[in-house]
């Protein structure tokens, strides 16, 4: 019976007010100027797409910090295909790249979206595609186009067509507060609630295929770890031992969860086999706190937080067990580390004076760079292309999300209309945005 109800709990569209607003707080000098011309509609008047595809692309590119998108109102011409483009005009406006496109009807409720990316100086097409889509998938299609443009011009894969999961608390603080776990597009649109509770919800973690979330729920008065399919809402309780059941982290192959249990007396890191018999293997053994495990992208190491040295610091242990080594030495408080997608960096929470900030640790040099400026920043999570880190911060006492580029030069706030937001986790690439051959 419970399972049926949980399916019903899955995926609603939330009210309008739940949208995130993105405010760029710090820009980058030398962002690449690009003009994305409003896409033309080739069909019957008044029956065109309800989403402004060009504007979605423009915002995505702008948000990456790598591009300066020209506002549509400043455009003197609005060509819809390559043959209409006067490159000289765009050159005069200082644009290096230009995107034009059009939308055609394609069957019932369907569209065909065509776009072309040009190098203005050479007057050459760099890339062009026709993409069939539907009314419902228009935003996703726009994000895919932004990904293609981003990759073509920066050489780095785009991460616009990904999602972010986060926890939001609604209602008056403390008692009577409702907590929800939500999944939204990376630009904050289309938030959907996948679980709500009046008890704490914590520590969402994406499966490597982006189809499941593991999380901690106190819904029966005690913490338990659940794994829930994001699209169907079907879920399974995978850990409900005595004491702490916390900090789930998926192995890169998706077959194991690293987690924190205190069933044997104090918090230790365990590996839970998700396939077969749910076998448990203990990875750490120390009377101090061991928690917040995170896998290296090659699946060979696990970093975790431990106060075995007196203060919380990051340690590393081979995923198959073995000797524990200390990773962070700077400062009195370093916690909740996770690897960059290339495995060369850790992002973590670091105490600087009285403030808790987001740090980036270079694993080769050991150098720690502080990326954020808040008092209580936490829960950093890399974008799947490694370009940005999303994290939780407090603004005027309210939990908000923010993002920063890994070089620390570009910052933005992601402002929700309501609620107290925390624990953002950026999704991995999913099947739908897997690289084309």
């Amino acid at each position, binding site marked *: 019976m419970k399972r049926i109800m949980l399916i019903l709990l899955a995926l609603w569209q939330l009210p309008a*007010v739940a949208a995130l*607003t993105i405010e760029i707080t710090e820009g980058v000098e030398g962002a690449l100027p690009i003009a994305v011309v409003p896409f033309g509609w080739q069909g019957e008047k008044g029956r065109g797409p309800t989403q402004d595809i060009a504007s979605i692309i423009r915002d995505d590119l702008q948000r990456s910090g790598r591009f300066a998108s020209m506002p549509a109102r400043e455009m003197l011409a609005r060509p819809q295909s390559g043959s209409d483009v006067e490159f000289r005009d765009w050159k005069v406006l200082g644009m290096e790249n230009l995107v034009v496109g059009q939308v055609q009807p394609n069957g019932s409720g369907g569209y065909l979206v065509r776009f072309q990316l040009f190098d203005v100086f050479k007057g050459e097409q760099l890339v062009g595609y026709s993409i069939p889509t539907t009314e419902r998938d228009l*935003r996703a299609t726009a994000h895919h186009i932004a990904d293609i443009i981003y990759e073509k011009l920066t050489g780095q894969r785009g991460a616009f067509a990904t999602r972010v999961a986060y926890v939001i608390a609604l209602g008056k*603080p*403390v008692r009577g507060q409702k907590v929800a776990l939500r999944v939204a597009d990376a630009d904050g649109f289309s938030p959907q609630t996948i679980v*709500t509770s009046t008890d704490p919800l914590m520590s969402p973690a994406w499966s490597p295929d982006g189809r499941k979330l593991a999380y901690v729920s106190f819904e029966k008065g005690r*913490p338990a770890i659940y794994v829930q399919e994001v699209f169907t809402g079907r879920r399974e309780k995978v850990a409900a031992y005595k004491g702490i059941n916390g900090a789930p982290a998926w192995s890169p192959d998706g077959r194991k969860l690293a987690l924190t249990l205190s069933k044997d007396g104090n*918090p230790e890191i365990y590996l839970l086999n998700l396939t077969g018999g749910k076998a448990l293997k203990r990875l750490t053994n120390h009377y101090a706190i061991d928690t917040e495990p995170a896998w290296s992208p090659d699946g060979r190491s696990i970093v975790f937080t431990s106060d075995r040295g007196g203060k919380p610091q990051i340690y590393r242990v081979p995923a198959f067990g073995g000797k524990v080594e200390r990773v962070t030495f700077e400062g009195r408080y370093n916690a909740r580390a996770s690897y960059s997608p290339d495995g060369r960096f850790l992002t973590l929470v670091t105490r600087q004076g009285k403030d808790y900030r987001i740090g980036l640790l270079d694993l080769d040099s050991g150098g720690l760079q502080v990326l954020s400026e808040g008092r209580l920043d936490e829960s950093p999570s890399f974008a799947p292309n490694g370009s940005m880190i999303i994290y939780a911060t407090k603004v005027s006492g309210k939990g908000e999300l923010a993002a920063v580029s890994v070089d620390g030069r570009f910052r933005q706030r992601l402002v929700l209309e309501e609620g107290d937001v925390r624990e953002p986790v950026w999704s991995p690439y999913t099947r739908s945005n897997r690289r084309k051959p």
Partner: protein
Amino acid sequence: MKLSLLKLYPSRIGLAGGWRVDFRSWQGATTSNIGYIARSCTAAMGEKMRAGCRGNLFVTGIIPIMLLALAIGGCSSTEEKADEGVGAPVEEAGQAGSAGDVSVGGEALVAGATEGGAWSGSELQDPQSPLYTRVIYFDYDSSEIRSEYLDVVVAHGEYLAANPSVSVTVEGHTDEQGSREYNIALGEYRANAVKRLLLAQGTQESQIITISFGEERPLDPGLDEAAWSQNRRAELLY
């Protein structure tokens, strides 16, 4: 202690009501985004998503009932793949102490308070008793019981030892500084520090349940040291 907690509430709610994010410079962007979503929630969607939109009523109306049903009906369920390692049932805290001559629990507490001075029930209701103190506070990143609370915890331990039918839930909590899962662990250390001292007075292991909420249930939602010192705590709940 319970009473003072209640007193804290209204004042803090007032303060919280005043929280507003400063929208000054990006009011425009905000408005346009609302427009977008509002539109996307009506005409712009496929049939399935539009159904989801109407579901908002469903969210507010039916979900609480479902959750309630979950809470009531779901406790004894075993259909989820339970693990062998799940410990002894721990949900029985509410029934603790109903047997015997000692009257405890939330309702008893309120009744005792309104009788005004006639502490006919248990020592737990006597403001003069150290047992009346149910919340003890900790230093930053510490699970050491401060000297001023030793007498309180010892008194609770002796009381529990003398009343083996009574059980207690010890909740560990932290302030909002630092990372959340580390705070869950720290909260458990605090609860366990209290538990060890209770056991040392002769309380039985079976009388004590510990749970950590980390920073998830602050007493005071403020974000300064005054609030945080209230949140770094262990609570004894009979």
